[in-house]
């Protein structure tokens, strides 16, 4: 295996400038949407007193969960010693930071009082998993920056393993805490489950790697640097394992709930009695899990890079749908204050809540993705994140010339 040379991308082409401009444009639009929401109040959004967390939170949680998963590739090289993943480590750390910052921006801009961010930073209620999340998110950015530094500065390479282990442990705690935001809520029938934390961890593996695969491929295609099939295939096969693991945990979650009479009606709601059931079966399971697995492993598709990319895209669609069903669907199902009673009130007790995302919310969510993209775009131009070549002969330790 040849020595890997990392180099900044040139970043002067018209396409690069157009992409940067487009991302900046989306960011500006998102900021205007956030200002509009803050100035006029959340009445301009689709969120209400029944569905208190909406599309911005779906985007934010998706990005934050993906962020911790994107670091996986670097962790596999540093923590588990797989040299084949080593050239990908710096980009992995970068994508992780970028996704997290994108997700956090959405979360902060959606707050009822975003001007009180300083208050949030200085008043901590340590029994709140939300407060712990804030510590984990900020710590993650710090640790990954140090990790990148260890990876990218030659004389510190020897420390990259220890820092990599610390980063790996930290990111596991982060995703556990994110899953526990929902898992700790006793009030809501669709949440209140210990499996939420591990499910989020495995989901992070899945969508983080899918995003990383797509970003990696795009980066190499658009800069016309060579990338070999061995690298893509390795990532694709790993992604398939994660997709299957997510399906497994989702199955366990629902099967366990179905066993209890207590959860019968909420399971009926989630699996067969609502629009969320449609999203679950068609988008999360069908298009988001089963079809990608076919694309990744079926002999007809598994060696075709187009299907690898389509599969990764579908995994993202499935992951997004999963977060949507969890966040929105979980709130739509009414709180059961009086089991065994029919309930009506002026505050929508006993009613399934409806939610229609509004434009400002969707624009804010897209802006978060744009922020992540912009950070990656400029970082690879400023610093040496990308190897000059990921061709098979340069990176594959088991490469044998075909002739």
């Amino acid at each position: 295996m040849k020595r890997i040379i990392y180099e900044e991308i040139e970043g002067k082409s018209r396409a690069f400038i157009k992409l940067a401009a487009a991302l900046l444009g989306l960011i500006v639009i998102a900021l205007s949407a956030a200002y509009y929401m803050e100035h006029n109040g959340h009445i301009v959004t689709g969120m209400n007193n029944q569905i208190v967390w909406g599309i911005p939170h779906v985007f934010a949680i998706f990005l934050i969960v993906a962020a911790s998963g994107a670091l996986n590739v670097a962790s596999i090289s540093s923590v588990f010693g797989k040299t084949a993943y080593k050239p990908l480590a710096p980009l992995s750390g970068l994508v992780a930071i970028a996704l997290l910052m994108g997700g956090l921006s959405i979360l902060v801009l959606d707050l009822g009082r975003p001007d009180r961010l300083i208050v949030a930073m200085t008043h901590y209620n340590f029994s709140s998993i939300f407060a712990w999340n804030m510590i984990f998110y900020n710590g993650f950015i710090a640790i990954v920056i140090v990790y990148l530094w260890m990876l990218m500065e030659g004389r510190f390479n020897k420390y990259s393993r220890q820092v990599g282990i610390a980063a790996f442990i930290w990111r596991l705690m982060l995703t556990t805490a994110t899953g526990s935001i929902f898992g700790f809520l006793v009030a809501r029938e669709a949440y209140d489950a210990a499996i939420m934390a591990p499910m989020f961890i495995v989901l992070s593996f899945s969508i983080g790697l899918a995003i990383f695969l797509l970003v990696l491929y795009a980066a190499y295609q658009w800069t016309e640097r060579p990338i070999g099939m061995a690298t893509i295939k390795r990532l694709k096969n790993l992604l398939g394992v994660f997709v299957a693991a997510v399906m497994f945990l989702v199955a366990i979650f629902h099967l366990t709930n179905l066993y209890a009479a207590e959860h019968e009606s909420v399971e009926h709601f989630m699996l067969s009695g609502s629009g969320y059931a449609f999203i679950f079966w068609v988008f999360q399971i069908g298009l988001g899990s089963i079809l990608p697995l076919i694309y990744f492993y079926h002999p007809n598709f598994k060696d075709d890079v187009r299907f690898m990319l389509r599969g990764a895209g579908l995994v993202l669609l499935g992951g997004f749908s999963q977060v949507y069903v969890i966040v929105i669907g979980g709130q739509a199902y009414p709180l059961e204050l009086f089991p065994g009673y029919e309930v009506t009130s002026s505050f929508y007790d006993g009613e399934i809540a409806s939610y229609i995302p509004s434009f400002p919310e969707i624009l804010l969510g897209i802006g978060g993705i744009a922020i992540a993209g912009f950070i990656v775009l400029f970082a690879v131009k400023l610093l040496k994140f990308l190897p000059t070549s990921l061709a098979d002969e340069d990176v594959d330790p088991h490469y044998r010339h075909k002739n």
Partner: protein
Amino acid sequence: MTQVKDLTDPSRRKFVGASVGVTGAMLIGPGIFLHQVAQAKPDAEAVTDKVRWGMLVDTNKCATGCDDCVNACAKENGWANEKGPDEVKVQWMRKVDLKEKSTGREASLPVMCQHCEKPPCVDVCPTGASFKREDGIVLVDKHICIGCRYCMMACPYKARSFVHSPVENHDDYMPRGMGVVESCTFCVHLVDKDKSPACVTSCKEKALLFGDLNNKNSEIAIRVAKENSRQIRQDLKTNPGVRYQGI
């Protein structure tokens, strides 16, 4: 630097408070002051956990279609004239109409913040804005609330509301504004002056009873010790301060 002048005079204040209270109790009809007035808390003293405020709702006296308590709360706390669609309107308390599925029996009752002993909303608030006062009243410190709505996700009783639009006419006694979360305060501004919450005072049927659950001689403590009552979602073991009879 000049010293800050301390203007409080506890003994004089206590005398004035007690005499006003006794005179008031004689002048105003029974049912308004439902707890001991002789124990008037001096203004400058902090609340303690010697007291635990609670409410007893007798749903047998609650009529379907009557929402006097809800209207009184809305007027007292300034959320009566909110603009906007129903889904975003703030509701500190609401009347819930029940029909038991297996028997067909109907009932009606007001639901508000249950002022739990172990409030899930307090556990989850990232800044500590959602807190429980020593005397059991669960409040939102709107100065440090960042409007994240996590407490709304966590409350099993759907007691909390988020203010979705700017507040135009500020109430003198219950400051409230856009972008923060709020809920029933047991009319803490009245309770601290030894009065009862507005809902309790307004109920013509005397269905609501407010008092100190820790005081064995208070009417509410006597009644809950003698008569059957239950809490909503008792299984969650949050131990709410609001108890219901007749359901």
